[in-house]
């Protein structure tokens, strides 16, 4: 079976853990996140009749209290930058994390605007947003709360890892 390591990155409270929770039922307690900075879950998806086992590394949110956990990105086949579309700052932080991650790894990256069930609250021009989106291989609007687009996003990332 093909196995792929996928990392979820982003600012605090953007919904990375909730996204994974929506997608899988894991065995580890979320306490791992705060103790060693990562929690890992597993999900098998099917791409063109081939099963791909995604190991989802949910990495602790990056903020002024937490340093960027670059070590966990090593060996990943792709990573997801999650931002909260109701918080302008989370996008800025996401882009910063993307830049840091690019120093370590050159694998496909996806930009996810989470909390799509809530009203977007950008103070940004569309052209500016599109500029950010252009830095990524794919972009998705998801809602961890309703499950909207979550499956599709993970399916897309599985496909991206196989194209590589």
């Amino acid at each position, binding site marked *: 079976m*093909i196995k792929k*390591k996928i990392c979820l990155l982003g600012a605090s409270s953007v919904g990375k853990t909730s996204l994974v929770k929506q997608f899988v039922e*894991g065995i580890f307690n979320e306490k*791992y996140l705060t103790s060693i*900075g*990562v929690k*890992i879950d*597993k999900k098998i998806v099917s791409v063109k009749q081939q099963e791909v086992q995604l190991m989802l590394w949910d990495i602790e949110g990056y903020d002024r209290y937490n340093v960027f956990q670059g070590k966990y990105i090593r060996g990943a*086949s792709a990573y997801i930058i999650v931002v909260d579309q109701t918080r302008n700052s989370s996008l800025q932080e996401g882009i910063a994390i993307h830049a840091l991650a690019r120093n370590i790894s050159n694998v496909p990256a996806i930009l996810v605007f989470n909390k799509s069930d809530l009203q977007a609250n950008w103070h940004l021009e569309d052209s500016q947003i599109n500029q950010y989106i252009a830095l990524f291989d794919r972009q998705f609007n998801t809602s961890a709360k309703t499950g909207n687009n979550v499956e599709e996003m993970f399916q897309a990332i599985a496909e991206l890892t196989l194209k*590589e």
Partner: protein
Amino acid sequence: MQKNASVQLTESQQELERLRTVILGEEHHLITDAVNEQARDIVGEVLTEALHDRQKKDGSIDKVLLPIVEASVEHSVVHNSDRLISYLYPLLGDLIRKSVGAFLSNFIEKTNQLIEYSFTVKGLKWRFKAWRAGISFTQYVLSQTYNYRVEHVLLIHKETGLLLKSVNLEQQSQNDIDLISSMLSAINDFVGDSFQTSKDGQKEQLQTVSTDSFKLLIRSGPSAIIVAAVTGNPPQQVSEQLQITLEEIHRLYIDELDHFDGDSSLFKNAENQLRDCLLTEEIKTELSSNKKPWFAWLLITIVTIFIAFAIESGYQRTQLKKLIMNIDQQPGIVVMNINVKSENDITLDVMRDPNAIPIEQWFNSHQLSFKSLNLIERRYRSLSPEILNRRVEAIISHYPDLSFHWKNEQLSLLGNIDIIKYQELTTQLSDIGITSRQLQIQQLSLDNSNDFAQSTDVNQQIFKDLIGKISTIQLNFEVNSNQVTPAMQMDLKLLAEQFRYLIKLAKQLNINIGLLLMGASDNSGNRNTNKKLSMMRAESAAIELTHLGLNRVQMFVTSLGQIDIEDVKNTSRKVMFNVIYIDNKIKD
């Protein structure tokens, strides 16, 4: 001189350089081509030796060959199964026998262990300790039975933390092993980054993780991590084996590890290397291999003895019950219920005739004795011939001059008896159920020669009783017949004796007596004819009595003819008797 020497040296160096160019330079293909032509011969020449040497050196040949051989056998099974079966056929019988034998000995051994750990003080202690440690009893037994046991071995890709291959001691699948691998490598990364880097730039590596019930031994290589989950206290040997295996895997799979893209199937054959790490060591003092399974044998012996005892005692009880049941064959005893609890505890419920053999006496005669005999005995009156005989025996024993025998359920009396005693005897016999119809007295001589020692009052009473008895005698004739039958003769014989005795008594009491014979008939036919028939019947009886020694002068024969009483007129074909007596004392 020196210069010459240095020129020579330079020349030889130049020649050497030229030779090198010929061999390894542009023309080197000349050499390799020549070698390639001979390659088959050259390799063939040393192949066996080379394999032998390499195997001896590091044992890597068999591990490389194993997957090839397995693939060949698999191919053979799929495509040439018939041939394979014919090869294996002669071996199958032995294989099965061996396998069954091994299973049985393993079963006995396991049973023994189970019993040993379940019922002994040590077992209970272990159960308590397992409960206190919060682990299963089986786990605790394992931890106590083995010095150590490598349960799982994981091979993890270092960079991605993905599981490449895992092997288990027991053939059970671990669903979460992928997650555990990734988490373990994350923790390893965490440790590596969190603690101080050593002077030579090497990051700290996690070596061991210990929990209550097991230890994780971790060895990290440049591209892969090997992890062994061990119960007990693993010795250095396990770590060494992990290191050797890890190095071997790096050597064999260096390309696959460096270019790993998530396809773990490439590492399928690494199982052979990983299995080398599944080391186990039993605690010698606890379970030496030649230890006899005493507990299992003891249990089997106890169970066997118990079953044998149960069968034996059940058989004994059945036999005893059969034996006691024989008492039912005894006349006058009916067994209602027997309950044999044990050989010495018996409840017996019977019905017994007082003339039957006493139960205890029967037990004694059969050498049976019981510590606890609960006897429920109820009285009843048996009609069996043996018991009737016993009752008759008891009565007749009071009459020394009499004997008896049975013939066709008729009791024949023999010997002499006083007429008065005879009256008593018939009363007693009728009390025990023997009617006058069952009594044969042809061979009995009734004696009336007794002196009348009794007082006059007593004699008078006897006189009246006799008259009464005579008046109860009636002869029953067939239709239109006056023939005296043998049954009538019996009655007449008794009557004659009684009347003779009566004459004697009458003389003593000064009474005159006469015997009245009254013939009668039913109402069928002519009244005159009936009158005559009645007369003839009375006459026949009188003639018979005369033959029996009575004087005709003392008899008065008369005919009653038809008896016109509604209830008897159809069957009144009789001769009746009565005694007429005149007391001379009153007459005077």
